[in-house]
């Protein structure tokens, strides 16, 4: 009897999760797909776009990709050394736990706070909202996620594997790079994906720092549009055509995240062929 109750509970929860996911996808597709045209993908907003006239969201698509890819790149460069540095070969237990606690707190901070923080810093340095500003704030937002997930993966690598490498007369660095990094690579890819997903979908942190524009940025000092903000601005209008475009923008965002997930899964699978669990 108990078994059955728990099994029922599990099935119910699973159904709830799947229904939610399906609901999000169905509604986004249902409301967005009709408005999704080729011109929407490749054109920037023309005059009167926000009143339902000609144009597209290429500015936001390109902007979001630039922001998220730029921030992922910066985060990877910082996160990998930090994640390795937190291992016990390099750092004492106390310092490592303290750092992890700090990162967990940072992970939990609402992204609007990052945005406000970034804004204050930019004002201090006399910068205006720009691609660079957006990338920096998104990097801050993504770093704790990346470092913590990578660190967990690296920590689960069996001591025996490291012993074997050390026993061959390798240095710490050689073992870290040639053995541990390779073994951790699939997990590192997953960590990057997780952070990328959070980064590309975040609106609040880049609201003040990246700004919004109808143009594709020509340099990293130009303001840049983004998909989450495109959704936000368009859905707030009373015009039905523009609202439909908001759903179309959301659909594009959804598709980008989906493609990145699938590609990184495949990559992760390819990389894990060499790994013994």
């Amino acid at each position, binding site marked *: 009897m108990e078994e059955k109750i728990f099994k029922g509970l599990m099935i119910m929860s699973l159904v709830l999760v799947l229904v939610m996911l399906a609901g999000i996808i169905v509604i986004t597709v249902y409301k967005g797909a009709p408005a999704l045209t080729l011109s929407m993908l490749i054109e920037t907003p023309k005059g009167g776009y926000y009143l339902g006239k000609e144009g597209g969201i290429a500015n936001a698509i390109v902007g979001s990709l630039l922001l998220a890819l730029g921030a992922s790149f910066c985060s990877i460069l910082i996160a990998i050394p930090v994640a390795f540095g937190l291992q*016990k070969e390099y750092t004492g237990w106390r310092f490592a736990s303290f750092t992890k606690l700090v990162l967990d707190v940072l992970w939990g901070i609402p992204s609007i706070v990052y945005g406000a923080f970034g804004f204050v810093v930019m004002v201090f340095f006399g910068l205006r909202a720009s691609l660079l500003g957006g990338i920096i704030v998104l990097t801050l937002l993504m770093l704790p996620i990346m470092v913590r997930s990578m660190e967990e993966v690296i920590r689960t690598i*069996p*001591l*025996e*594997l*490291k*012993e*074997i*490498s*050390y*026993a*061959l*007369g*390798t*240095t710490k660095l*050689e073992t870290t790079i*040639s*053995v541990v990094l*390779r*073994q951790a*690579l699939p997990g590192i890819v997953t960590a990057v994906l997780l952070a990328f997903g959070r980064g590309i979908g975040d609106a609040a942190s880049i609201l003040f720092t990246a700004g919004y524009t109808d143009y594709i940025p020509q340099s990293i000092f130009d303001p840049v549009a983004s998909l989450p903000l495109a959704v936000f601005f368009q859905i707030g209008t009373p015009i039905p055509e523009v609202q439909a475009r908001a759903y179309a923008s959301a659909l594009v965002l959804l598709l980008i995240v989906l493609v990145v997930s699938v590609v990184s899964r495949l990559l992760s699978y390819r990389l894990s*062929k*060499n*790994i*013994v669990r």
Partner: protein
Amino acid sequence: MPHISLKDLSIAYGDHKVLQNVTVDIPDSQITVIIGPSGCGKTTLLKSLNRLLDLNDDVNVTGSVLIDGVNTYDPKADILALRKKMGFLSQRPYPLPMSIYDNIAFGPRVHRVSKEKIIQQINTLEGRSVEIPAGNKSHIDILVESYLRLAGLWEEAKDRLHTPASRLSIGQQQRLALARALAVEPEAILADEPTSALDPLSAQLIEKQFKVLKKNYTIVVVTHILRQARRIADYVIFLYLGELVEHGPAEKIFSNPSDERTKAYISGEIS
């Protein structure tokens, strides 16, 4: 003087003493087997020989381990050079996350061994002058083949050298580990219960390989399988609760042990 010689070696993890005052010479070119019940310090003793113990927290070592006359616990000792001299096999074989070929080439590549040295190494190993054939075959290819043959894995692996080593069976993985360790030209092989994860046939292959290799290498094997010790040991070290109870040639220990505890362990009264 033997390659490996322990003098008054005591090891503690924190306050917990694991080994006390162990003094023993490990005979060259023989298989020395360390036996004793679980948790009596066998693996600790083995890992003290190549300082893998350093990876554990809070380890205190007093006394000395002399490798070719050099105390490895001397702060000035070159740990990397020392570890190269001591090939290591772990309980569960872990292939490095790369192909079979790269597993063997890993050591020589990491140590940036020159082409001349590698050719010399192969010549010494094969006992003849090996020609590097013209064409696509490199000196590393020959090195990989030589060591896979030495570990008895060549026939099974030759057609899939560039596939992930993780796809080998666990028994094959252990022979790969042996080949990989031998490729850095150690003087000794330290094996920590090397057959405990293996099926009986694979275990037999490893034991057979050890008997072949002992001509050229000093082999130290930790085991808790008494029958295995009887099959392969030339020299036996019996540890009990962190104490070196008795050591000596295998025939003597197995047929006529002097200590009561050894007698009890050999006869199976204690395990």
